[in-house]
C-alpha cells in the first residue's frame, strides 16, 4: 500500500468485501430458545395525549405522540434482600409475564385483597390492598402494575407501585442533578425521610412538589412527587438514546451506601413518581407509584390509594 492511495477508501473497500450467510443451525437454536423463553411484560407504554389539531394550532404547539416503553432496568436494581433477583449490572428491561397464549379462562389479574409486595428476606414486609381487577404482579421488583394495554393477559402496564425496603442505617445519596449524577453526588448521605425528601425537592430539573408529612400504616414519613422533564423526549428512541447526554445514559434518583451507580433510575421523559418515604422502626421504606404523563387520573388515584393502603411488618 503506498502513500499515494487513500487509506480511507481502502478501509471502506475492505469492509465492503465478502457476503455472509447465517447458517440454519443458528436460526434453529434461536427458534428453540424463543419457543422456550417468554417475552417480558413492560411497564408502559406511556403516551402523551394526542392534542386536537385545532387546539394545537390555537396554542401554537405541535401535538406529539410519545411511546414511552419503559424498561424495568431503568428502575434500578431491586432493594437489597428483596424477593426479586439479586441486583445485577444489567437488570432486565422487563419482567416475566403470564403465558402469552390465549388462556382457556379469562385472565382476571391479582385477587382483590391484601397482597404482599416484598419478600420474606426483606428488612420490612410491605403489603397493600388490591381493590380492583387487572393488577399484575411484578415479582422481580417487589411491585404491582396495572394493565392498560387492553391485552389479556397484559403485556404492558401503564402504572406501577414498587416498594423499596432498605436496612436500618442505609445512607441515601440524592444527586444534585439527576442527569449529571456522577458529579453531583453529595458527600454526606441523607438518612431520614425528611433529609431524603428535602434533597429530592432540591434536585435539579425535577419540578418536585414540596415534601409533606404523611402517615402510612401507622408510620410517619414524607411524601413528594418528582418528574422527569419532557425535554429529553426523542420519539421512537430508546431510553439510553434519550438520556444520552446524561452520565452513563442514566437519569438517576439516588444512590445508596456501597453502590457506584444509582440505586434508583428513571424510565423516560414525562415519568411521574409519587414517593412515600417512610421510617419503619429505623428502616427506610420507599413506596414509588410511577406512571406516565397520560395515565388516566382514575388510575393515578387508584395507585396512590394502593400506596396509602400499605402496611408494614
Amino acid at each position, binding site marked *: *500500500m*503506498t*502513500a*499515494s*492511495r*487513500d*487509506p*480511507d*477508501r*481502502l*478501509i*471502506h*473497500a*475492505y*469492509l*465492503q*468485501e*465478502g*457476503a*455472509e*450467510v*447465517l*447458517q440454519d443451525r*443458528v*436460526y434453529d*437454536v*434461536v*427458534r428453540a*430458545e*424463543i*419457543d422456550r*423463553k*417468554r*417475552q*417480558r*411484560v*413492560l411497564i408502559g*407504554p406511556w403516551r402523551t395525549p394526542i392534542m386536537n389539531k385545532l387546539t394545537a394550532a390555537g396554542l401554537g404547539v405541535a401535538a406529539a405522540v410519545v*411511546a*414511552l*416503553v419503559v*424498561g424495568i432496568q431503568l428502575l434500578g436494581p431491586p432493594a437489597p434482600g428483596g424477593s426479586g433477583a439479586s441486583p445485577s449490572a444489567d437488570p*432486565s*428491561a*422487563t419482567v416475566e409475564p403470564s403465558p*402469552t*397464549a390465549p388462556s382457556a379462562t379469562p385472565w382476571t389479574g391479582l385477587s382483590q385483597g391484601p397482597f404482599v409486595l416484598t419478600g420474606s428476606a426483606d428488612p420490612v414486609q410491605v403489603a397493600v390492598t388490591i381493590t380492583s381487577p387487572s393488577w399484575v404482579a411484578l415479582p422481580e421488583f417487589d411491585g404491582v402494575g396495572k394493565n392498560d394495554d387492553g*391485552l389479556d393477559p397484559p*403485556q*404492558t402496564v401503564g402504572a406501577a407501585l414498587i416498594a423499596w425496603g432498605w436496612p436500618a442505617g442505609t445512607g441515601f445519596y440524592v444527586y444534585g442533578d439527576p442527569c449529571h449524577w456522577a458529579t453531583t453526588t453529595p458527600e454526606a448521605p441523607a438518612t431520614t425521610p425528611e433529609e431524603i425528601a428535602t434533597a429530592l425537592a432540591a434536585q435539579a430539573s425535577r419540578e418536585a412538589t414540596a415534601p409533606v408529612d404523611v402517615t402510612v400504616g401507622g408510620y410517619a414519613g414524607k411524601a413528594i412527587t418528582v418528574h422527569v422533564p419532557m425535554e429529553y423526549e426523542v*420519539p*421512537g*428512541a*430508546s431510553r*439510553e*438514546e434519550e438520556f*444520552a*447526554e446524561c452520565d452513563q*445514559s442514566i437519569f438517576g434518583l439516588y444512590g445508596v451506601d456501597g453502590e457506584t451507580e444509582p440505586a434508583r433510575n428513571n424510565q423516560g421523559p414525562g415519568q411521574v413518581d409519587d414517593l412515600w418515604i417512610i421510617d419503619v422502626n429505623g428502616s427506610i421504606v420507599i413506596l414509588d407509584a410511577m406512571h406516565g404523563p397520560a395515565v388516566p387520573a382514575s388510575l393515578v388515584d387508584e395507585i396512590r390509594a394502593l400506596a396509602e393502603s400499605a402496611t408494614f411488618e
Partner: protein
Amino acid sequence: MQVGLVEQAQRGDAEAFDSLARLVGDRCLAIAVRILRDIDLAEDAVQAALITAWTELRALRDPSRFEPWLHRILTNACYAEAGRRKRWSEGLRILPGTSSNMPDDYLTVDDRDLLERALRRLTVQQRAVLVFHHYLGLSISEVAARTGLPVGTAKSRLHHATRALRASIEADSRATPHSQERLA
C-alpha cells in the same frame, strides 16, 4: 412487511419472529463478523442478539426501528463475545502483491493483509464504529445510536479509530517493504 412481523412478534408470535430473524440474520452476521473478525464468535453474537431481541421485543417503541434497535443489541453482544473469548488469530500469511498503480479502492492481497492486521489491533469498540460508518454507511448520529454512545463520543471514537488504523497500516508498510519478495 418487516413492521408487520415485528408487531406480530411483539404479541408473542414466535413464527413471526423466526421469519423476521431470517430477514435480518445475514446482515447481522455481516456486521458481527466485521466487528469481531471471527466467524464463530460472530455467529455466537448474532444468536445471542436474536434471543435477547425476542425477550425484550416489547421494549421496542417504534416497530419500524427494529433493525437499528437490533443492531444495538448486536453491538453489545459483540462486545460480550469479544470479552469472553479473546482468541484473535495472528500471523496471517503475506502473499505476493501487485502493482501499486491501482485505483484507490482496488485491494491487493498485500492491502488486505495490512488492513486485516490493522483492524485486529483496534479495540472491538473502535471496530464497531468503523463498521457502522464504513460498512453500513451510517451518519455519526446513527453510529452513536447503534453503539449506545453520545454523538460526540462516537465522532471522537471514529476519528481515533481511523487515525489508529492509518498509523498501523503505515507502520506495517514501513516494516515490510519487501514482503512480496520475502514471502511470495
